[in-house]
């Protein structure tokens, strides 16, 4: 009768699940209520949310602070172009195959750059991204340094009519964001995910528990690379045009993503969601100010890192003890014992 | 109390949420040598860290020469004339023996101690002055650590577990050098787990137990049984 029970769910998490489902249904119906410009913006938001979740998994849980994620965004984009133009694939399978190729490619890369520790690892990832950028700029059949556009025939495979096409690529972006969010959530709940949290909390203790740290980090890196490439493919499916500078832009695909995660709250699942919303709110109101807006973004990131290292979500959580994505176990005592 | 060199008043010390010292009162007269004894975890090292400024507390809880130093940084405390010989010696591995000693002289206070005097006290250091500090034996490292602290010409020197991990013969040598040091009118606080060594050179003793002062008195006046009880927390 009075046995305490152990559970992950909390009232807040149950409410969040319910609200989340409602929001998802509303978003899924987007093409029926949203205008074209709004759908474009929302697609971009979904894809940034996915990139932020992936980066957060790497940096916030696995300690892999990468500033070279643009390598895989650009790679995924280029694979979309190469596999559809030269391989004759439909864009959607081409994007997925691009993800698998990125996973395969990330293994030798990891064996090299995992030799660099901490912050040097970060710059190492950047070098890899530069190698990607310079290499793709050498491929003349993909337009070399100036890039190329997706042929109309291939674009039409997404939908013959413009409205269908836009709805389809909206759903692809939404679907990808949901899949990435769920994948990261269930990964963190799994045995491996718990191992990851153990590594984050204490690498020494984790290795004492028999967790193969190198291997676990490698798994995260490979999974993250694959998902990042898939998101990259979807990004350039929206843009329909690719060039080395756009595909491997450190600002667009890494700096903004880092700001999102830092501002929202690194090492939490809720953080990237909040961060994405804040980032786009800032961008939509300040983007006209150009460079000034970017300086504000840099400043906000610095202030958050110094004054609230757990981000906006950290502030909320510390204050209200909320957890929308139940990861930790809680011991719950039956009502009659509460307060005793 | 009024002419105390160092006085500690109701000191509570914390590591984050963990309280390591409770309501410590202590005073040290000029030229006095006192022993602080206690079991592992009794709070001896926390006391050393608090006095030296590595652990910062409320300002008024520690006074040195009449000035409140409880909230000062370690480097500021060093300039005021307190030096610590840290537990485990902790020489700088990237520095040679002589560089370690010179670094100890950073604060540049005037007084009897100089490189020359240190080398006279511990001639073996002079022979090895240009070698890396990591090449020294444990006992030699302890000499270098003491020399490094003396180089600042402190008015109060704190010895934290200077016999820990050393062979008895080496400990004997180091304790034989102590009178030469405190003979210069220096005030000293000696923290030891090895009670008898500490009591040999001290005039008063404080015993710590679980973060509190469990016994205090003149060395000749407290009995061995009292100390054992205060040390282990059981009646002997």
């Amino acid at each position, binding site marked *: 009768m009075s046995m305490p029970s152990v559970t992950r769910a909390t009232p807040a998490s149950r409410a969040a699940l319910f609200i989340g489902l409602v929001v998802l249904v509303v978003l899924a119906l987007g093409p029926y209520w949203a205008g074209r410009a709004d759908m474009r913006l929302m697609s971009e938001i979904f894809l940034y949310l996915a990139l932020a979740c992936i980066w957060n998994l790497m*940096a916030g849980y696995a300690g892999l602070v990468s500033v070279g994620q643009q390598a895989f965004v650009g790679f995924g984009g280029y694979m979309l172009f190469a596999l559809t133009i030269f391989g004759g694939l439909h864009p959607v399978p081409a994007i997925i195959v691009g993800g698998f190729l990125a996973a395969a490619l990330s293994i030798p890369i990891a064996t090299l750059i995992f030799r660099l520790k901490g*912050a040097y690892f970060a710059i190492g990832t950047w070098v890899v991204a530069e*190698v990607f950028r*310079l290499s793709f700029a050498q491929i003349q059949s993909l337009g070399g340094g100036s890039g190329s556009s997706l042929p109309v025939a291939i674009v039409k495979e997404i939908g013959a009519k413009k409205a269908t096409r836009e709805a389809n690529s909206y759903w692809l972006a939404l679907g990808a964001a949901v899949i990435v969010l769920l994948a990261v959530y269930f990964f963190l709940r799994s045995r491996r995910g718990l191992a990851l949290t153990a590594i984050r909390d204490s690498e020494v203790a984790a290795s004492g528990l028999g967790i193969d740290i190198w291997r676990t980090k490698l798994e995260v890196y490979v999974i993250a690379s694959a998902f990042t490439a898939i998101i990259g493919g979807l990004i350039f499916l929206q843009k329909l045009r690719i060039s080395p500078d756009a595909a491997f832009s450190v600002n667009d695909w890494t700096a903004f993503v880092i700001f999102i995660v830092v501002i929202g709250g*690194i090492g939490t699942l809720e953080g990237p969601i909040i961060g994405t919303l804040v980032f786009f709110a800032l961008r939509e109101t300040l983007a006209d100010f150009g460079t000034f807006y970017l300086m504000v973004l840099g400043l906000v*990131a610095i202030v958050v890192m110094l004054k609230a290292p757990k981000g906006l979500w950290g502030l909320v959580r510390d204050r209200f003890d909320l957890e929308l994505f139940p990861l930790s176990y809680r011991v719950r005592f039956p009502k009659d014992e509460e307060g005793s | 109390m009024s002419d105390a060199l160092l006085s500690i008043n109701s000191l509570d010390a914390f590591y984050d949420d963990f309280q390591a010292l409770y309501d410590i009162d202590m005073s040290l007269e000029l030229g006095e040598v006192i022993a602080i004894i206690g079991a592992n975890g009794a709070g001896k090292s926390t006391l050393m860290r608090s006095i*030296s400024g590595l652990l910062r507390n409320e300002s008024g809880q520690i006074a040195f020469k009449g000035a409140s130093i409880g909230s000062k940084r370690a480097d*500021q405390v060093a300039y005021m004339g307190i030096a610590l010989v840290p537990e485990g010696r902790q020489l700088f591995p*990237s520095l040679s023996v002589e560089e370690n000693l010179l670094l100890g002289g950073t604060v540049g206070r005037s007084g009897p101690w100089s490189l020359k005097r240190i080398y006279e006290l511990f001639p073996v250091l002079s022979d090895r002055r240009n070698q890396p500090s990591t090449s020294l034996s444990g006992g030699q490292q302890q000499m270098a650590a003491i020399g490094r602290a003396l180089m600042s010409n402190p008015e109060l020197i704190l010895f934290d577990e200077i016999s820990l991990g050393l062979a008895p013969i080496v400990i004997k040598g180091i304790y034989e050098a102590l009178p030469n040091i405190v003979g210069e009118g220096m005030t000293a606080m000696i923290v030891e787990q090895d009670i008898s060594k500490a009591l040999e050179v001290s005039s008063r003793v404080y015993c710590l137990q679980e973060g509190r002062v469990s016994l205090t008195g003149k060395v000749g006046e407290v009995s061995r049984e009292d100390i054992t009880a205060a040390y282990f927390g059981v009646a002997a």
Partner: protein
Amino acid sequence: MIEWVNSIVQGILLGGLYALFAAGLSLIFGVMRLVNIAHGDLIILAAYMGLTTIVMLGVHPFVALLIVIPLMAGFGYVLQRGLLNQTLGDDILPPLLVTFGLSVIIQNALLEIYTADPQKLNGGLIETASIPVGGLAIGILPLVTFAIAIVVIAGLQWVFYATAIGRGFRAVSDNQDIAQLMGLNKAHVYGLAMALALGVVAIAGILLGMRTSFDPSIGAGRLIFGFEAVIIGGLGNLWGTLAGGVILGVAQTIGAKIDPGWQLLAGHIAFLVVLALRPNGLFPRVEH
């Protein structure tokens, strides 16, 4: 044949500039384990400070050094004490992300003030003058740059191993707490280290600006070159950093000789090869 020799010689001299990019990075990492992502942008900031000095005072870039070095050093001290010291600790994220934010701020501030138009520091005759050596024409500016790199690294080596400040750097790097007990205020020591590093950055920025045109966006590339030189040479070894810069420079000029598009790629590949074969660099620091 002579063209290849020429490429190699040019590469060696270019390595001097890369060593200057790397020296500040290496110094900061050595003293406080900080990797400064904004390092490249600070080099470009120094180049622009040089530009303003030259335009306002009508002086030669080398004379501008007399103003830019102390300005950058002072900025370094303030930056370290005012901002970067607060990021240091066991967690690698705060310094990384704060310097990343700093990089974005510097880059966009430069863009706001100077626009994206490429600029160059006019060094006058020294830019075109060369001395003939056995059929090669060796440019005076690259030669002077290389000589400055050697002098700077020798100077840093001297500061590190023969002065009280250097002793303090090494002591704080070994053990912050004990160094603090000896009267060293680590916040101040770190400030001095950053001041020294940005002094070197000032020299690197001015020499870069005389050699090629620059705009606010190229900082990241300079950070990467400096970083590659550090890793190729071996962490914590200043002379190794010079060797790393030379290897990187030679790889780039040989790559460019094969195909102009291969210049940067060849440098990165040289770096990755070294990382694969000798993860600790070619000249890792020998403990003494």
